[in-house]
């Protein structure tokens, strides 16, 4: 059986188109089932377990301070509980705001209290590499693996944190880049401390360059005697996952109270479909990519052939 030279083309085209449409229709289906993997955003107000708590938890019965007045405490919330990373995501800003209960400061400008807001991203393992010159070429010669490094870390305060409290206090609550928790993988424990410190500095420097680590020394402002707010910017490249915001209330270098909130940062829309598709069903994703490529090539060749007539 011989077909005219041109007759196979529409058939092939139709078949491709049909398969392409089928593949397209599959995406939402596939990602809907994958949606289950995403846990519902956790409760928004919580204290972080496992971290040392210095200030006494708010007792059920209010206890008067030694001076016969109610002790101060801080309460805070975030402008948004969940941030959607969509295909048009170019970064966003979240507002952390709160009040000082039983505030004793006379005015917003008095500087009576110090507030520090820390926003922590999900800890993730990373590899830091250092280049060295080997036979004239600059190549990655050494590397170290950190099991847990916050993927995002922003700090905002009413004034530079060094003025707010002693380094030991800051370190205890992991406030400031120097106190960011980075645990090296066990097999690298024998590394010289100064070398380790260099890697740490490099990680912080690189994360700062990507705006994933940020510091705003006057990023928290009191609006009234007790109300304060802070704008935290999330860059376009912010890794998805839950963010935890910690709000600390200091007075004369002592922590009076603290409060934690969480913000869910997750992929949404097309961005989420494609990402799930690529990671949950890689083989179909690969085949889909090839279909798109073949279809693009065929459409282009027919379009431009017609244009040439």
């Amino acid at each position, binding site marked *: 059986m011989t077909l005219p*030279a041109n007759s196979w083309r529409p058939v092939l085209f139709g078949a491709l188109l049909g398969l392409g449409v089928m593949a397209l229709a599959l995406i939402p289906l596939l990602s809907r089932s994958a949606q289950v993997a995403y846990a519902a955003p956790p409760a928004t107000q919580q204290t972080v377990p496992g971290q040392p708590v210095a200030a006494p938890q708010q007792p059920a019965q209010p206890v008067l301070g030694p001076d016969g007045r109610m002790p101060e405490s801080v309460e805070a919330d975030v402008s948004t509980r969940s941030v959607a*990373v*969509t*295909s*048009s*995501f*170019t*970064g966003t800003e979240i507002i952390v705001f709160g009040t000082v209960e039983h505030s004793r400061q006379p005015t917003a400008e008095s500087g009576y209290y110090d507030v520090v807001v820390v926003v922590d991203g999900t800890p*993730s*393992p*990373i*590899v*830091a*590499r*250092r*280049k*060295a*010159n080997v036979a*004239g*070429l*600059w*190549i*990655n010669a050494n*590397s170290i*693996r950190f099991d847990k490094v916050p993927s995002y870390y922003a700090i905002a305060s009413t004034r530079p944190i060094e003025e707010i409290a002693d380094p030991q206090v800051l370190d205890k609550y992991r406030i400031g880049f120097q106190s960011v928790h980075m645990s090296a993988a066990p097999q690298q424990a024998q590394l010289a401390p100064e070398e380790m410190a260099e*890697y740490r500095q*490099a*990680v912080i*420097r*690189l*994360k700062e360059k990507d705006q994933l680590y940020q510091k705003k020394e006057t990023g928290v402002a009191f609006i009234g005697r007790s109300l304060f707010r802070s704008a935290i910017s999330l860059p*376009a*490249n912010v890794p998805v996952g839950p963010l935890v915001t910690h709000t600390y209330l200091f007075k004369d270098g002592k922590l009076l109270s603290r409060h934690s909130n969480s913000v869910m940062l997750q992929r949404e829309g097309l*961005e989420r479909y*494609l*990402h799930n598709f*690529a*990671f949950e069903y*890689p*083989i179909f*994703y*690969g*085949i*889909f*990519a*090839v279909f*798109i*490529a*073949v279809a*693009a*090539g*065929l459409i*282009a*060749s027919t379009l*431009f052939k017609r244009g040439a007539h």
Partner: protein
Amino acid sequence: MNFYLPIAEMSANIFVFLGMGAAVGFLSGMFGVGGGFLMTPLLIFSGIPAAVAVGTEAAQIVASSVSGAIAQYRRKNVDIKMGVVLLTGGIFGSAIGVQVVKILRQIGQFELFVSLTYVTFLGIIGTLMLIESLNTMHKARGGKQVSARRPGQHNWIHGLPFKMRFHRSKLYISAIPPLMIGAFVGFLGAIMGVGGGFVMVPAMIYLLRVPTNVVVGTSLFQIVFVTAATTIMHATQNHTVDIVLAMLLMVGGVIGAQFGAVAGEKLKGEQLRALLAGLVLLVCLRIAYGLVVPPSELYSIGGVLGGH
């Protein structure tokens, strides 16, 4: 207008990548080459992770080769049997290449390896092309007849076993050399994010002695299948095919190629080859520069692979 690339995990201006696709498409249309060897370094220079550049480029090469392959097939310029032997080797080589990419990424040496293969191959090919085209120009000025193909003579390849008859190519040779060449080109393609025509075409002409009229069609034919397999393997093994980025490059590329083809018709073959050689050497030098100049930042950080 910005778009978040799902696999590269970065927000990118879509016009930058459309433009990049169009520019490389123009050059590949003009010179009649795939353009992968230009696109992959450009993507890496623009901040796309090297492995994502390579995986995504494989998908784009499928798009840019498929229409050419069909056109060649219609003109009966494809030796299907030879193509199948080449692509069998090619898929095998590509599978090895994809695994090598995976291992090199884990130990943090992929960028270096890509750079070194680019410097090596672009250096060799660019230099050979430049010499050849300058010679041709020189001879043409002298008024001598220019012959691209040397008279066929028997070489060691004809002594190998497993001989097969390739009717379209009018050849009776062992299947081993085409399998080896296919595997080598498939391996290079998987690692460099190229179709590999720049190695395949000379290898077919000078090693296998395939007639020039079927060389380009057969090469395109096997490139389509091998890069399609490479795309799927990169997607499954390395998760490095960014469909959004690939589509931007395809759209830019097919449009650019149409204008490039028109521009290419206005230049002589040897002039085109000299220009292309210059371009290849420029890219080669730019990559070599990045390897030898002391970097301003010695450190880099990356995710731990395998624990996604």
